[in-house]
């Protein structure tokens, strides 16, 4: 007997852009989708972003567009997956709201965790009041008071905080920080046109469409000063300003500057909330904790576990467009898988 798509249950874990977009695509194919988000609202990290690079699109617009038509998707916020059991066919997923779903496929869209910048002890996040993160600055852009942003005259951005850093166990590039730093440097320059703004970078990875234009604009229109060199340590002077050390590697000289505000570009770490599920289902992970897809070139949405799929930053740092594309690719992969069952 033919089973209709509607009789197939798919549980999507994680209600960020990947989860929402994949759920929408699967819903459009007629499947019954359960979307589970542990936070109080859908959107994931997008909820904490003000505007998006490279064109300054408000994140709120993207979110409302994404969540405008949720179709028949059964979505739950403030809900966690308490247990996943592998059955002979499919999975039994028990949620914290008491619901138990027999799922034919699981899609993990658990995303990333923002790197805990206080782990880079030498930068003094959580100790020096004028050191903030990219996320804190996004808060400020969206109108949430951040006391450290107090009419700063000298502002620094530190790229690669918790990325390309073996010491903290994150050898990879987090992909979005360069573009975020340049975006935020321009935005803060708009707010404080007289401020001197520095970007401390190791390599500028402006790989996406429109990113290089953003960099050029940061240089020419906003006069952002780019210093090729990683900030090595930060301390406070007598007045509570930040004393920053880096090497200006292009001139081969140590560089010192006093700043009023230092913004750390915290990168992406793997989301530890997915670890218990990964353990239960014996999913492969990489040495940095991100989930390992079956084949990063040809089967990036598939896991080593039948019926379990991935989309977005749960397998490594991704930009938003990449995440969206993966979400749709995952929907297609799941569809192909279920049609073969």
């Amino acid at each position: 007997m033919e089973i209709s798509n509607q009789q197939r249950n798919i549980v999507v874990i994680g209600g960020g852009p990947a989860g929402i977009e994949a759920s929408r695509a699967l819903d459009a194919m007629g499947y019954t989708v359960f979307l589970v988000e542990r936070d109080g609202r859908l959107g994931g990290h997008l909820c904490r972003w003000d505007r998006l690079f490279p064109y300054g699109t408000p994140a709120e617009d993207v979110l409302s567009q994404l969540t405008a038509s949720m179709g028949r998707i059964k979505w739950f916020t403030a809900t966690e997956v308490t247990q996943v059991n592998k059955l002979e066919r499919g999975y039994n997923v028990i949620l914290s709201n008491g619901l138990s779903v027999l799922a034919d496929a699981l899609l993990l869209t658990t995303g990333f965790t923002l790197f805990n910048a206080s782990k880079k002890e030498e930068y003094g996040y959580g100790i020096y009041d004028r050191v903030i993160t990219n996320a804190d600055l996004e808060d400020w852009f969206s109108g949430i008071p951040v006391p450290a942003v107090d009419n700063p005259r000298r502002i620094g951005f530190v790229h690669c905080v918790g990325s390309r850093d073996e010491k903290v166990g994150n050898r990879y590039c987090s992909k979005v920080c360069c573009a975020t730093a340049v975006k935020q440097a321009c935005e803060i320059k708009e707010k404080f046109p007289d401020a001197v703004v520095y970007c401390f970078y190791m390599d500028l990875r402006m790989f996406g469409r429109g990113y290089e234009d953003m960099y050029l604009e940061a240089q020419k229109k906003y006069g952002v000063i780019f210093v090729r060199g990683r900030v090595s340590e930060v301390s406070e002077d007598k007045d509570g300003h930040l004393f920053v050390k880096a090497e200006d590697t292009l001139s081969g000289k140590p560089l010192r500057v006093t700043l009023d505000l230092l913004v750390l570009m915290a990168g992406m770490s793997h989301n530890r909330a997915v670890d218990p599920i990964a353990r239960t289902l014996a999913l492969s992970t990489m040495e940095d904790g991100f989930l390992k897809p079956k084949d990063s070139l040809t089967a990036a949405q598939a896991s080593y576990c039948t019926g379990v799929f991935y989309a977005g930053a749960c397998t490594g740092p991704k930009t938003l467009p990449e995440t969206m594309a993966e979400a749709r690719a995952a929907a297609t992969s799941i569809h192909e898988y279920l049609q073969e069952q």
Partner: protein
Amino acid sequence: MIDFGYGISPSSAINLDKFDRTKFEELAREEPDVLKCMACGSCAASCPTAGHSDMNLRRVILLLGRGREDEALRMVSHCMLCGKCLIVCPRGINTRHLILSVTKIYQKK
């Protein structure tokens, strides 16, 4: 004072706190393209004087932006204004014009 045969060495560090940006900003007003340099080094690589002098336009631009005018001007003094750097600059900076502006602005006392 006693000479112990050793002493306090001057710092080679770039101290941006002590950098008076007035002249650089004047240069940027006159030659906005100076801000576009992405330090690729094409100019220095093709410079005919590079092999026998310390002229290096990439470094000149960098040093001016770090408050090291003396070093930059010493380099610029070796430039023959041939314009080879202008041909290779991927950002399309009018390097010859830039060098003339540097000379004009920084040699004003």
